[in-house]
């Protein structure tokens, strides 16, 4: 996917003035948060399971080479193939050559964030192969020609009315505003596509080293039809999806759905192991795992390693005040919200994704709810420091920080100046109690007033109070 992360400020500004987006996003803050809370509270072992899930993934990453080797061996034992791809370009070529081996005309697709990351749809289209998204949310945004705005609810930015318009235009059926009727329409449109497709592509929530299995976790059943009906199943997976055993996966599953949608368990958890057996009446004849690095191995052994625990549940964005305000598209890349602010700079480079780590109030809710306890705010701070060290922050910001640093290192000057500024603002604004506008502060005063200072500086008040409270 092409990034527009460098335009975050303009993107966010536009998003804040988009009334339909505001309407669509209003449910995210309420729905997801409440449901996760209820699901977590209903399972007494939830916090213990989180701790164990973190430990499992830490252990797994520390022996990732052994797990990857075993996984490959087991896939081959079950009649499948593993294709190792160092980056997105290699992965795209691999998928294309598998599709070409059967002269594929259409490809059905289950939801895959990695698929977005490597830009597989555009690439297949450019090579005259039609990719058809089958997850309802992905289907909607494919019709709208937009990228996903949420990692588990890709069309969460669309109102029902916008979806009704899209379906009317593309399905050539009378416009309906009934949710069930809209779902039934999409169901009927996609039915034949499953049978016609030559190849089905899915992502993977887990790769299990024990048996060489890939696992998808879904609610709609589209992923299963996508991977069962065509003659070829291609799995797109990045190397950090590995878990050692089925028991380990069970532990992570127990925190995944609860954190994501507030379900105890998603409807379909499908464990796929190799190709159709000789005696099987259905299932794909070929099973290919495209094993993609794309920057992951470079994160191992660094302060970014924690990010490789991410199970893409979406809880961090569901609980993020910035995400609630601007939505996913403003971030300008595949992964929005706190995980995007922490991960996108690693995938895109700090210069491109400079603004994302700043898109945070540092309230810490993301880390609190992250089932894998990823220190997201700490990683965002890391990127801010990197941006400063690399000298790629805007000049105004850099000079302001320099100026502040100069005064902070000279306490006497600092106090004199703050006292003078305080006194001046008090004198100017005391009558009305607030400022409607101030030079250099229009970013603040455009949307709200700035209260006028009521008296002395913090230092002065502290000095005065100290004597009394002791």
């Amino acid at each position, binding site marked *: 996917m092409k990034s527009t992360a460098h335009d975050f400020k303009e993107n966010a500004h536009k998003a804040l003035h988009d009334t339909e987006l505001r309407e669509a996003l209003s449910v995210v803050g309420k729905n997801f948060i409440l449901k996760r809370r209820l699901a977590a509270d209903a399972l007494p*072992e939830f916090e213990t399971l989180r701790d*164990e899930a973190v430990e499992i993934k830490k252990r797994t990453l520390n022996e990732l080479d052994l797990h990857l080797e075993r996984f490959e061996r087991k896939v081959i034992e079950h009649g499948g193939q593993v294709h190792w791809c160092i980056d997105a370009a290699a992965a795209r070529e691999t998928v294309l050559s598998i599709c070409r081996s059967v002269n594929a005309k259409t490809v059905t697709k289950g939801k895959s964030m990695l698929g977005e990351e490597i830009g597989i749809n555009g690439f297949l289209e450019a090579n005259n192969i039609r990719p058809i998204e089958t997850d309802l949310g992905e289907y909607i945004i494919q019709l709208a020609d937009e990228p996903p705005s949420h990692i588990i609810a890709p069309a969460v930015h669309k109102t029902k009315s916008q979806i009704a318009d899209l379906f009317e235009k593309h399905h050539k059926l009378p416009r309906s505003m009934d949710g069930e009727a809209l779902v039934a329409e999409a169901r009927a449109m996609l039915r034949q596509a499953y049978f016609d497709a030559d190849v089905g592509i899915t992502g993977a929530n887990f790769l299990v080293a024990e048996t060489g299995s890939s696992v998808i976790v879904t*609610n709609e059943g589209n992923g299963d039809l996508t991977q069962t009906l065509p003659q070829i199943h291609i799995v797109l997976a990045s190397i950090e999806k590995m878990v050692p055993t089925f028991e380990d996966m069970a532990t992570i599953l127990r925190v995944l759905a609860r954190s994501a949608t507030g379900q*105890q368990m998603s409807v379909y958890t499908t464990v796929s*192991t190799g190709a159709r057996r000789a005696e*099987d009446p259905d299932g794909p004849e070929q099973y290919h795992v495209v094993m993609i690095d794309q920057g992951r191995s470079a994160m191992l052994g660094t302060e970014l390693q924690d990010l490789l625990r991410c199970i893409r549940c979406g809880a961090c964005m569901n609980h993020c005040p910035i995400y609630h305000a601007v939505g996913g598209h403003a971030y300008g890349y595949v992964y929005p919200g706190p995980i995007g602010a922490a991960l996108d700079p690693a995938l895109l480079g700090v210069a491109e994704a400079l603004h994302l780590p700043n898109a945070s109030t540092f309230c810490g809710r993301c880390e609190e709810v992250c089932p894998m306890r990823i220190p997201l705010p700490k990683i965002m701070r890391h990127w801010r420091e990197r941006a400063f060290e690399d000298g790629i922050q805007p000049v105004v910001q850099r000079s302001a920080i320099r100026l502040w640093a100069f005064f902070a290192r000279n306490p006497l000057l600092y106090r004199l100046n703050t006292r003078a500024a305080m006194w001046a603002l008090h004198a100017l604004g005391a009558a009305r109690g607030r400022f409607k506008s101030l030079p250099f502060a229009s970013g603040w005063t455009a949307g709200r007033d700035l209260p006028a200072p009521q008296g002395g500086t913090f230092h002065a008040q502290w000095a005065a109070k100290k004597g009394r409270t002791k």
Partner: protein
Amino acid sequence: MSARDRILGNVRSALGRAEPDDKTRAAYDARFDAHTRNTVPARASVPHAALIERFIAEAHLVGATTARLDRLDDVPAAVASYLRDKNLPARIRVAPALQSMSWGEQPVEVGYGKAEPSDTATLTRALAGVAETGTLLLTSGPQTPTTLNFLPDANLVVLTETDIVGAYEDGWDRVRALGATPRAVNFVTGPSRTADIAQELILGAHGPIDLHILVLKN
């Protein structure tokens, strides 16, 4: 250098690990025989009668329906009345695993094998039911084709009480007991659903709209 060797090499150098020798590899593989469990929720470790009740209650919570039957011979009548009540066509695609069952006088057209595009209802057999979340465990194979679980509007599943277990781990032990790992193992928790249209929960997105579980005493 192949992409495989580059990726494994990058992983090893990032982690400061040497290429493992045969002894390390053997010790690593041996760990997989232990099937060590992590914490299993207490709700999965209750007497069997309570597990059956839990399974049924959880299945209802996720929108599945159930019927309790004494024996396999009661299934055809239960299927016929279900199709009638649901206003579905009186025909069903049945898993070969249930081929021995006699349909007698039931007014239902029965076909066996994998699901076909025109099938509106299917009947299959579960390997196990997991009580902790009302989850069915369905496996692929000539006796229980996978398409039966996903293509129809209504999926009916036979589950024997003795096959109801507490936790996912117990269910996976049943899979291990089969010997070879089947191509597909499906954990199914309720009928298909979506919330992709303005966050409204709607059943029957692409998979079955109805999931009906026939729980057999034996």
